[in-house]
């Protein structure tokens, strides 16, 4: 029930003054109410729950979280091995949570 699915806003319009949009969820498109995310534009990602967009997905923050996860344990590994060529994503030095 609390599941929110991220999707990309494909189109935006209004019905009786209510902002609506088409959101693409990896190929499945749904009509979604955008009244709670007045700032979203076509091309933005949003998290949708029971037909309502609840927030604009913060893409910079998503990338930052992934980067942070990639860096978990990296400093220790580097200290032990000197380098870690197998690490996915190759984060820069000194990035430790």
């Amino acid at each position: 029930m609390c599941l929110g699915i991220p999707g990309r806003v494909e189109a935006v319009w209004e019905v009786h003054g209510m902002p609506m949009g088409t959101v693409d969820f990896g190929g499945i498109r749904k009509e979604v109410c955008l009244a709670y995310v007045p700032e979203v534009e076509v091309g933005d990602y949003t998290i949708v729950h029971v037909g309502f967009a609840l927030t604009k997905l913060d893409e910079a923050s998503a990338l930052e979280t992934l980067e942070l996860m990639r860096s978990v344990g990296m400093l220790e590994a580097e200290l032990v091995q000197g380098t870690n060529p197998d690490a996915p994503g190759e984060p820069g030095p000194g990035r430790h949570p």
Partner: protein
Amino acid sequence: MKYLDEFGDPDLARRLLDDIAATVTRPWALMEVCGGQTHTIVRNGIDQLLPEGVEMIHGPGCPVCVTPLETIDRALAIAATPGVIFCSFGDMIRVPGSHGDLFRVKSTGGDVRIVYSPLDAVRIAQDNPDKQVVFFGIGFETTAPANAMTVQVARRQGITNFSLLVSHVLVPPAITAIMESPSCRVQGFLAAGHVCTVMGMAQYEPLVAKYNVPIVVTGFEPLDVLEGIRRTVRQLEEGRAELENAYPRAVAPAGNPVAQAVVEDVFSVCDRAWRGIGVIPRSGWRLAEAYADFDAETRFDVSGIITTESELCRAGEVLQGLIKPVQCEAFGTTCTPRSPLGAPMVSSEGACAAYYQFRRLEQPA
């Protein structure tokens, strides 16, 4: 799919698991509040990959599961009333009431319809002016903005043949109830990310302070859950109790103020009985006085409800994290998704359903 697949990366999962293992020096019991997270944990075997001693206790965050039996029985009675179109999220259809479920009402001639969005129910009301359309408005804070907006839309458009049977529940009072329980073993919480998307994080500060318990706002993909666990364990090991946000891509500290304003307009806080748990003070939302004309409970005079709960079902203990589903004698034998004794066996967020779907073959016969 973008922003889903990246958060299921197995290499990164291993990295987070290794870090948790390197951090842990003694046993810890964490609770994931939300049933969606329970399903992520069980489906991906996260609890089995965690270092020994880190236990995940499954919380009560399954709105379908905690909707009081009396409300389910009321829904069944309203749905069976001639001239009513009863609309509900799909999850509710197989939830057992005292006598049958909505599916059975439908099979005996009731007009029960599954909708994706509550706005669909308003459309059905517009298309059927000679019928009374009732929407079963349940859910946590995540779902409340959708249901609240739907009531506002119905009022604005002058739709009078629409009403809501409301049974909304709130997370923070549930955390209080869990912490106040004498049998509480929880030492840290993963808070439900999308609840905080709506409500923000401020409500959790007093809980962190009062109970000296770490609370980490957590998302729903495998990496999100692992990161929530990793941060909670790190706090516990370091003797800290703080409120952290491990899901910043969807949770702003203030939440969604537009949604909060609409919810506050349409709903007001009330005491709520949680199925299997009991009454938790100020743990629910009902329609505010100004919207009382949309209340299905007053519109339909359904009296004489006498509830009877299954004597075998231990859903209440499962919902409070006191037992795992497989410890219930009825699990997988007299209680299955096709023939459930309790709601957690049929909800997509129910712990029993998660264990039945992904774990039943692992259990000794």
